[in-house]
């Protein structure tokens, strides 16, 4: 599989169709990969593709929007992210050549649990139980059934340990704002001081900002160094978008917040 990929990449580079290929290379061990930028034909052998290719590489596209880029997509969501970026006028379609590897991967990765794959299996040490117990793989519907107090306690505990490293934001393909609102000083939406409430506010606002644009690619969830289950939030906004507006992100529909129907949501506000 990696061989075919390398061949494709070699051709693209050799024929000058792209200036750089963004793909995956071996990470610090066999269970981890890392994004890699290949611009020399000699380096294409670094490219690999396997079930541990969890990064959403489309995050690099807006940064390098002036280059002709060949990009490897390992998940359906990565592909959708690219389309979303095109729709949002962040990248030019003609500058991107997509090397789709998503289908091969999905056949491989069914063996592994999604969470395991995302985190790498070297840490498999019986903590899956704890994972389950704490509601990390809870469906949104189940979580919604909890009482308001239970939900609040859950998230308070989760966001209490957030260190605001903003890895979730930086790895997110649609968090491409030139300057995030948290950096703003006039007014200051968020103080530098890190506490649970502010951490929560940041994530909540980020969720509202990626509403309808999030492809649920799990990049933020995987990036969090302290394991905050952001996936639960991204699943929630995807669910709401579908239920409220029949909207699925990445399908080229008009964004729910830039349009409306006169005779919808009649029961929402009275």
């Amino acid at each position, binding site marked *: 599989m990696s061989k075919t990929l390398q061949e494709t990449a070699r051709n693209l580079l050799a024929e000058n169709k792209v200036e750089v290929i963004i793909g995956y290379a071996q990470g610090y061990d066999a269970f981890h990969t890392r994004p890699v930028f290949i611009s020399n034909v000699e380096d294409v052998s670094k490219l690999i593709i396997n079930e541990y290719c969890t990064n959403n590489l489309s995050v690099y596209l807006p940064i390098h929007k002036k280059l002709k880029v060949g990009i490897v997509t390992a998940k359906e969501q990565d592909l959708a992210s690219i389309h979303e970026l095109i729709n949002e006028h962040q990248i030019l379609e003609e500058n991107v050549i997509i090397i789709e590897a998503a289908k091969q991967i999905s056949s491989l990765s069914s063996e592994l649990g999604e969470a395991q794959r995302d985190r790498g299996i070297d840490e498999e040490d019986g903590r899956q139980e704890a994972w389950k117990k704490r509601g990390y793989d809870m469906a949104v519907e189940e979580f919604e059934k909890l009482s308001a107090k239970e939900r609040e306690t859950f998230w308070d505990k989760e966001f209490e340990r957030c260190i605001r490293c903003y890895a979730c934001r930086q790895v997110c393909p649609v968090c491409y704002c030139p300057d995030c609102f948290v950096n703003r000083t006039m007014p200051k939406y968020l103080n*530098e*001081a890190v506490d649970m409430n502010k951490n929560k506010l940041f994530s909540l606002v980020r969720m509202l900002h990626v509403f309808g644009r999030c492809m649920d690619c799990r990049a933020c969830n995987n990036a969090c160094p302290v394991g905050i289950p952001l996936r639960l939030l991204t699943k929630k906004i995807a669910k709401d978008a579908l239920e409220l507006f029949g909207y699925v992100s990445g399908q080229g529909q008009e964004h729910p917040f830039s349009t409306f129907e006169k005779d919808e949501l009649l029961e929402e506000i009275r």
Partner: protein
Amino acid sequence: MLFVLLLQPTTYNLQQKFSVNLLLLGMSIMEYTITTNNLRSLINDLLKEHIVYAPKLVSANTVLYKTIVSFDEYDSTALMTNTSAKSMIYPQTNRLFEFAKTTDGMVLKEDEEVKKSIIFGCRPCDAKGFSLLDNLFDWKGYRDESYFSRRDKTTIISISCTAPQSTCFCNSFEDWGATSKVGSDLLLIPMGDKYLVEVVTEKGKKITEDGKYFEPATERDAAIKQEIEQSVAELMPKKLKLGEIKENLDTAFESPYWDRVHLPCLKCNLCTFVCPTCYCFDISECPKGYSNGERNRTWDSCMSEQFTKMAGGVNPRSDSKRRFRQRVMHKFRYHVDNFNEYLCTGCGRCIKYCPVGIDIRRVLEGAK
């Protein structure tokens, strides 16, 4: 004995220097053993008068230093916490003082007295981080009271590790050893159902003084310790040639190498925030209403664009490359020039948690 007289110093400096001296003089270090059960009792005893921080499983795959209320909350299985122990002494948000405008003018209120605390289950790499921070916060006659107010009252009980991960590279540093004691007050070396206890400093000694849970170590214990050191050394990955790397970095500032190597980096603050040695900070005021507020010292990161951004909008490290280079250069070149030590303990967290898999070892080895 001489050191008994010196035991009463009023300033931390003397105490610290004394402790170090004890080591440098090669005086025999007091060694004990403690059984797991006794360790439990010891910690539970210490909990009465101390705040105890220890690795605690807070969620799946996430172990963090947290205040514990009993020994049982301590998670002994994790090799390493997700974030370093740094924040126990150098908190991410460190309130320097509160201020209030009153009719008598501005009144400052310093924080309450810091409570005595213990960091239990610290790994040697984290403990070493504190020794690096000590030197930094007490440099050229400037002593950071806020830092030392906590540092002085914190006793670090480390537990050496037996099974390094593929991201560990502490062996690249000279003072390395599975039983490295730098920064610790007390070092525990697990030996099956008991621990070998090495007293490193006076603060550590105080804990063992009670005596009721400790037994003197035997020669057999010393032998086992050596075996452990050996076996861990074998498990470690290959060493970095740090001397060579430093030399390369000295001339690599303008190197085109940085143009390529920074590309995957997305400029989050993760690596610097999980690091046991990254100390950069920002000072900010947080107003509460019109007449009250607090001044905070919060971690900052050279990875962030805001770090060097000036009020007028000029930013000397505006691009990704410059910021990436800064982090590497600071840790392995500038800091060495200033302190003669690397600003790194080899804990490997930045490698393990980097969302884009940047491996600082690879970055260093390639630097020319």
